[in-house]
C-alpha cells in the first residue's frame, strides 16, 4: 500500500507564543484507519487543522498522493480530496439534510436550486456508502449521531479520499459509537483513508489499524494497533503510569446534605427543560449525573448554584432552604461549583491567576480590609495553590489566557476545592484536559469525598461517571429516568438505552 499523506517537519507557533507542533513528520498509508492520540495540547488537532487548511504552518511540507501541495484554506483541502469532520459540527441547523450536504455545490436550474436533482444526489451517495439519512429533515431535528453522519456524507459528497475525524466519539453514546465504527469500517472497505483523533484509548484500539502517539508537540511513536495495549498508549501519551481503575466508594454512611425537590424549569422559548427533578446528595458520596448533553444538565446545575431561578421546586441544604438564593449566599454555605464551560464562567481569561483565584473570597478578612485588597496575602495564597495543584505558569501575575487548557482547569479546580467545601457541584470537571490533569482532578475529588464532602458530578464522559460515582442518575429530556448504584462491573452499555430515552425506570418494572 502506498502513502496517501506525508507531512514533513511541520512547525506551528500560535500568536500567543505556544508551539503546538515542533517539527512533526508523519506518513499516513492509503486505505487504513490511522488514529492519532495524545493529551490535550499535544498538538494533534493543530496538526490536522494544518492539513485541512484551518491553520497555516510556519515551516514544513505536505505531500498528498506523492505530490507536494500547498493548503491555504479548507477549500484547497477539499479540492485535493481531504475532508474533515469537526468536533463541533459545521452544519446549518435550520437547513435540511440535503441542503447542508450540497451547500456551495448545489445543482441548479437557472438561478434556483434543483431540488429534485439535489435529493437524487443525496440518495445516491447515501446508498453508495450505506449511510442512510432522512434527507428532507432539518438538522436541528436530528440526534447527534445522525448529524455526525451528515458531516461525514458532506465530506464524501465532495469526493474526499482522506477523512479526518476530530474526537468523533466525544458526543456519542456507546450505541451510537458502535454505529459510527461500522460506518468507518465500511468506508475503509470502500478505499477511503481515515484519520481518527481521540483520547479514548479503548476505542482507538478497537477501530484503528495504525496508532500515532503525540506528546508535547512531537510524535512519540507510530505503531500497528495490534502491537499496542491501552496501558502502553497511556504511558506513551503521558510519560508515566496512569490508573483507569474504578475508584471504590467510601463506606462511611453519610447524611443527606443537599436535596432538590421537584425542580422544574421552563426556558425563554417556553420549553420545559426540567421536569420535576428530585435528588438527594449525601456526604461521603459522589453522585453522578449522566446523559447526552443538552438534556437539562446545564440548567439543573445553574439552578443548584444560584445562577438561574427555578420555575418551581425547592432546594434544601441540610434543613435550610436555599432555593433561589444569590450565588454568593450559596457559596457562603460552602457550596463549590466547577462550571461546565471554564472559559465562559470559570475564569476571566485576561485577568491574572491571582484575580481568578480570589473571585469567591476577595471580600473576606484574609484578603482585604475595609476598602483595599491585601495584595501580599493574595499573592502568597495564589502561589500556595499553584504549588499544591501543580499549575504550570511563570508567575501568579500572568493572565490566565497564557496557560494551557489543562492548567486553566486546574486554576478553577484549585479555587473551588480550596474553599473547604461541603458540597461540590462538578460539571464536566475534566472536559478537554489531558489524561494527567484528569487523573489529578479525579484524585482531588476523591480526597474531598473522603473528607466528608458530597460531590454532584455531571459528565458526558461515561468512563468518568463510572470511575468515580457512588450512585448514578440518568437524565433524559429533563427527567431523571433511572438510578443505578455503581456496582462493580456496571458498564456504559447498560446506561446507554436510558440516556437515549429508549428505556425508563418505570417501564423497566
Amino acid at each position, binding site marked *: 500500500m502506498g502513502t496517501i499523506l506525508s507531512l514533513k517537519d511541520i512547525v506551528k507557533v500560535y500568536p500567543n507564543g505556544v508551539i503546538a507542533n515542533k517539527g512533526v513528520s508523519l506518513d499516513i498509508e492509503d486505505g487504513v484507519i490511522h488514529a492519532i492520540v495524545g493529551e490535550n495540547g499535544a498538538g494533534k488537532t493543530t496538526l490536522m487543522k494544518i492539513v485541512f487548511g484551518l491553520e497555516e504552518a510556519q515551516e514544513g511540507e505536505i505531500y498528498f498522493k506523492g505530490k507536494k501541495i500547498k493548503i491555504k484554506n479548507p477549500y484547497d483541502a477539499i479540492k485535493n480530496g481531504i475532508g474533515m469532520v469537526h468536533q463541533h459540527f459545521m452544519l446549518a441547523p435550520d437547513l435540511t439534510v440535503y441542503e447542508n450536504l450540497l451547500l456551495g455545490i448545489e445543482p441548479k436550474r437557472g438561478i434556483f436550486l434543483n431540488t429534485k436533482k439535489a435529493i437524487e444526489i443525496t440518495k445516491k451517495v447515501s446508498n453508495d456508502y450505506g449511510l442512510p439519512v432522512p434527507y428532507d429533515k432539518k438538522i436541528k431535528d436530528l440526534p447527534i449521531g445522525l448529524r455526525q453522519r451528515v458531516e461525514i456524507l458532506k465530506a464524501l459528497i465532495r469526493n474526499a479520499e482522506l477523512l479526518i475525524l476530530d474526537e468523533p466519539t466525544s458526543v456519542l453514546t456507546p450505541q451510537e459509537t458502535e454505529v459510527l465504527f461500522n460506518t468507518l469500517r465500511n468506508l475503509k472497505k470502500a478505499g477511503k483513508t481515515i484519520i481518527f483523533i481521540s483520547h479514548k484509548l479503548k476505542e482507538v484500539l478497537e477501530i484503528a489499524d495504525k496508532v500515532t502517539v503525540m506528546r508535547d508537540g512531537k510524535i512519540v511513536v507510530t505503531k500497528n494497533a495490534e502491537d499496542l495495549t491501552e496501558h502502553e498508549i497511556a504511558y506513551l501519551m503521558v510519560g508515566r503510569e496512569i490508573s483507569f481503575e474504578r475508584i471504590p466508594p467510601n463506606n462511611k454512611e453519610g447524611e443527606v446534605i443537599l436535596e432538590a425537590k421537584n425542580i422544574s424549569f421552563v426556558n425563554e422559548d417556553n420549553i420545559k427543560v426540567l421536569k420535576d427533578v428530585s435528588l438527594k446528595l449525601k456526604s461521603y458520596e459522589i453522585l453522578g449525573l449522566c446523559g447526552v448533553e443538552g438534556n437539562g444538565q446545564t440548567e439543573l446545575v445553574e439552578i443548584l448554584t444560584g445562577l438561574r431561578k427555578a420555575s418551581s421546586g425547592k432546594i434544601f441544604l441540610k434543613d435550610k432552604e436555599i432555593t433561589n438564593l444569590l450565588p454568593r449566599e450559596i457559596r457562603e454555605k460552602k457550596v463549590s461549583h466547577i462550571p461546565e464551560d471554564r472559559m*465562559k464562567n470559570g475564569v476571566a481569561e485576561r485577568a491574572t491567576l491571582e484575580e481568578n483565584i480570589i473571585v469567591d473570597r476577595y*471580600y473576606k478578612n484574609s484578603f482585604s480590609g475595609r476598602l483595599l*485588597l491585601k495584595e501580599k496575602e493574595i499573592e502568597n495564597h495564589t502561589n500556595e495553590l499553584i504549588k499544591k495543584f501543580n499549575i504550570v505558569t511563570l508567575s501568579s501575575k500572568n493572565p490566565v489566557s497564557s496557560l494551557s487548557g489543562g492548567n486553566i482547569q486546574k486554576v478553577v479546580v484549585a479555587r473551588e476545592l480550596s474553599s473547604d467545601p461541603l458540597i461540590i457541584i462538578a460539571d464536566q470537571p475534566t472536559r478537554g484536559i489531558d489524561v494527567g490533569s484528569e487523573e489529578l482532578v479525579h484524585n482531588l475529588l476523591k480526597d474531598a469525598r473522603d473528607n466528608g464532602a458530597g460531590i454532584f458530578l455531571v459528565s458526558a464522559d461515561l468512563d468518568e461517571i463510572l470511575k468515580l460515582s457512588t450512585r448514578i442518575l440518568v437524565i433524559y429530556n429533563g427527567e431523571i429516568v433511572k438510578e443505578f448504584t455503581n456496582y462493580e462491573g456496571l458498564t456504559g452499555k447498560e446506561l446507554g438505552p436510558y440516556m437515549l430515552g429508549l428505556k425508563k425506570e418505570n417501564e423497566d418494572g
Partner: protein
Amino acid sequence: MDKYVLKYFNLIRTIIAILIGIFICILIIFIISKDPQDGLRYFLLGPFTSVSRLGNVIEMASPIILCGLAIAIPFQAEQFNVGAEGALFISAAVATGFGVSTAFPKIIHIPLILLVAGGVGAIWGFIPGILKAKWNTNELVVTLMMNYVALFLSLYIINFHFRDKKANFLVSYQLPKTAWFDQFIENTRIHYGVLLTVVLVILVYILLYKTKLGYEIRMTGLNINFAKYGGINTFKIIVLSQVIGGFIAGIAGISEVMGIHRRFNWQATPGYGWDGVTVAIIGRNHPILIAFASIFIAYIRVSGQVLNLLTDVPSEIVTIFESIIILLITAEAFLSQWKYKITVREAEKREVKVESAS
C-alpha cells in the same frame, strides 16, 4: 531585544503610530505651506513658544483627563457609554446655579459646589446604569440621547433662570469669589482645579487596581459571567460604575467653570466628554496612561492654535494628526503580523534552549 519588544509592544506601537502621524502631517505641511519650516516648527513645538501657551496645554488637559477617567471607569466594567459630555454639561449648569445663588465662606462653598456638581453627574450616570442593569438597554444609545437632553435642559436652566442680563452674551451670573478656584501660576490660567485633577487620577488608579470595588468593576468588565458565578453583584457594579463615572464628569465641568470662566458661558457642549472617550481608548482605560494621552491631545490642540495664529497652516492639520493616531492605535491588526513574527522567533529560541538543556 525581541523580549523587550514583546513586553513593551503596546508602547512601541503607540509611538510608531504617532511617528506615522507626524510624518504624514509634515508631508501635508510641505505641500500646502509657503514657509514649511515655520509650519513644521510650530506644529511640533508650538506650545513651547510661551509660558501662557504651555499653560494652555495644562488647562486644557485637565478636563480631558477627568472626562477620560469618567469614561474609563464604566469602560472597565464593559459599559460602553459616551455620557461624560452630558453629565459634565448639566452638572456644571446646576452647580453654577447653586453657586451663584448661595453664599458661604470659601472653605465650605467650594466643596459644596463640587458635591452638587458630582451629585448631579452621578444621577446622570445612574439613569443609563439602572436602565442597563434592569432592562438591558443599550447604554451607548441611552447616554448618546441623554447628552442632548443635558444640553437643552442646561441651556434652559442657565438662560431662563441664571442669565446675567448685564452681560452682552448668553452667560450665567458670575460666581462669587468664594466659589473660585484661584489661578496660581503667573501668565497662565492654571488653577487649583488642576491639582484636584492630579489627586483624582491617583484616587481612580487606587480605586480600580487596589480596592475591592475596583476588582469587582474589572472582573465584571473582563467576564460578566465569571463575575456572577463568583458571587459578585454585577447589577450593583454596572450601576455603580456609571454613577462614579458621572460624578467625576460632573467635577470636570464645574472645575473649568470655577477655575477659568467663573461663569457658565457655554452655549454648546465643549466636547471634553468626547475627548474623554478618545483618551480612555488610547490609554486603555488606565488612569495614568489617560493622563499622558490627555496631555498629548491638549498639546497638539494648542499647536493647532499656534499654527493658526502664526502660519499659513490651518489648525485642522492637528485634527488629521489626531485621527491618524487614533485610527492606528485602535486598529487591532496594526503591526500584529510583526508581533506574531517576533513571538514565533522568541518561542523557537526558547525551544532551542530547552532542547539543549535537556
